[in-house]
């Protein structure tokens, strides 16, 4: 048996079962601890409906996996939540350090500042600047915001060390393996203390062993440090390492399930919660 830090994949649950609960996931009854709240978010591209009214809540220090078939609207949802694009309708609220803030009504400039100050991002490929060293790549967001170079690089070096990359600070991305590059990207997402970290298929380009390492690192540095994490993934095992899994189909959250707390010593495959979402 391999010694995976991941719990085993959860069996597909009650999708399609007749038991429909009378409440919908993330309904507007606001959870006071929710860092990010979305209500009836819609987004269309011409005739294509990418999001058909999504409601959800992301708790503080919670990790949420977003799953679903290709084209089901995962990336669009992530982009709306992260303020990369503006939804057509609906409300998205971030409870940042300075109180609640509407994300959906911000203009491009405001969204850009929001992303810079309150969010962290990890993409499928590291997308690091090839000329910069690892530590400079991680420090870049701070440098761009005017942080003193020595302080920025010290914070960057700290995160690299947390991610097990101590000693590799002066390497350039070309001199790092794919998994190491992705961990540099994870470190970059942590500088500046974001409230939420978004990751769109962060392990999509990695083999399963490396993807476990990256996912563990991502969880440790986010939820482990009190930050929330939203991960789009195709990988059941990646999803199972999160607190909660949302399943999208045709632009709707059709299913939500909580995963087993990771510290469960018996590794029992118990479905804590799983229900068909009322439409």
């Amino acid at each position: 048996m391999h010694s995976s830090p991941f719990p085993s994949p959860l069996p597909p649950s009650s999708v399609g079962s007749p038991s429909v609960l009378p409440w919908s996931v993330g309904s507007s009854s606001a959870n006071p601890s929710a860092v990010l709240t979305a209500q009836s978010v819609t987004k269309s591209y011409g005739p294509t409906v990418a999001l058909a009214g999504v409601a959800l809540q992301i708790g503080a220090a919670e990790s949420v996996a977003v799953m679903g078939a290709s084209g089901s609207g995962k990336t669009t949802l992530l982009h709306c939540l992260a303020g990369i694009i503006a939804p057509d309708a609906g409300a998205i609220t971030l409870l940042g350090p300075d109180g609640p803030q509407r994300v959906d009504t911000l203009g491009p400039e405001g969204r850009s500042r929001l992303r810079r100050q309150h969010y962290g991002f990890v993409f499928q490929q590291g997308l690091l600047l090839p000329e910069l060293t690892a530590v400079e790549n991680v420090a870049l967001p701070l440098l761009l915001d005017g942080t003193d170079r020595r302080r920025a690089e010290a914070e960057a070096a700290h995160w690299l060390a947390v991610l097990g990359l101590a000693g590799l600070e002066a390497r350039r991305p070309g001199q790092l393996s794919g998994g190491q590059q992705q961990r540099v990207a994870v470190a970059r997402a942590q500088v500046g203390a974001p409230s939420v970290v978004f990751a769109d298929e962060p392990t999509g380009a990695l083999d399963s062993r490396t993807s476990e390492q990256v996912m563990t690192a991502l969880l440790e540095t986010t939820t482990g440090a009190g930050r929330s994490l939203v991960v789009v993934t195709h990988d059941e095992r990646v999803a199972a390492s999160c607190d909660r899994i949302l399943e999208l189909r045709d632009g709707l959250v059709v299913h939500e399930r909580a995963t087993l707390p990771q510290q469960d010593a018996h590794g029992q495959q118990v479905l804590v919660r799983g229900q068909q979402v009322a439409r």
Partner: protein
Amino acid sequence: MRTATRLSFLLLRRGGDASRMSLALPVVAFAVVTALALTVLGGARFFFTIEGMDAPIYQALAALAVTLLLIPLLTLCGSAARLSARRRDQHLSTLRLLGAPTRTITSMTVLESTVLAAVGTGLGIVGHVALAPLLGLLTFHGEQLGAGNILLGVGGTLACAVGLLVMAAASAVIGLRGVVVSPLGVRTRSEAPRMSWARAVAVVVALGAGLLASQALRIDQGTVALVSGIVVAFGLTMAVLNLVGPWVLGLVARVQVRRAGGRLVAERLLAARTVLDAPKAAWRQVSGVALTSFVAVFAGVGVAVTNVMAAGAASTEEDLLLVDLRTGIVLTLVISFVTVAASVAVNQASDILDRRELFTSLERMGMSLESMDRARRRAVLSPLRVVAVGSAAAAGLLVLPLTGMVLLTDPLSLVIIVALLAAGIGVVWLALRATSPLLTRVASRV
């Protein structure tokens, strides 16, 4: 071949914005190369048709100008070829996935590169014909050149066009063998070249020879001696510059990396790292200006000195020659900067296209694109400044007593050259600015 043609057109039609852009860029680059090459050669050819006592001098000078402009033109040609090659890499992976046989890919690549070059060359010929009346207004030997003396003629034009096409096709074939081109995206991450012993010795020897040549310059032996002195000193010093150039740029960048700080720390750091990452590429991009800046000061000083020495006593012939030399210096400088600007525009545009994923991701992270843009501009302009000012200063120092004399007796001629250098840097800045909208468009694509 028919499959190749059909596939080429399919990929062309299906290609997005960026794909069309990577088609347009080599075409534009080839057009600029062709127009400038034909015009330079046409102008030079004219001097080989003139007769009289001064004819050999004019011919030597024309040959010198062509030699000077050859390097920036070849650089531009190389940029165009590299761009075509990059399309090949994209096609290769696409077609491999589709299971196309290697032969189809080969024919497609050669076909495409040649067609792109042909279109560009055609446009360049049109540009050459359009430029001719304008440059025909220039006065040489006391007479207007006239458009007819700029045009290279049918034979020469055809030979030139065929040459360019062969070069394009050849570089495509060579690229296919994987010998020459590495995809732009995968930059070779070499350290700044070290100064080897051989290099150092070569530099010292060449410097000594250059000094001797400039020594010969000081004893005025008439114009022929002046010109041949210039040619020798110039050739040797250029060899030196080519050896030292990348090394110096790397050195400067290394210091800049260490020193980067202050309000624009991210931009400064990124720009310096870009140069340090590939000092040879940075040098290649701007070295065309090194040649001409050097010669502009060197020859400019020479002309001014001769002018002063010969004041009153000179024949009309010599007066005319000096005026023509000035015109030639200005013309060479202008053309070299235009060529470098074109090559910078092509390189930068293709660089942006290469890194569009990266720029998109940075935009998504909320990083300022303006900062990225500034860093990109700085990564070109900083080496350009070092090279243009450095070469000009090197030339000025090489003939220091003469430069000092000219500063006192004919400061205007030096002022003009300095103004031209500044304007040249401005043209390159404009070329960089022209590629900024592409960065914005590429990055904000959702």
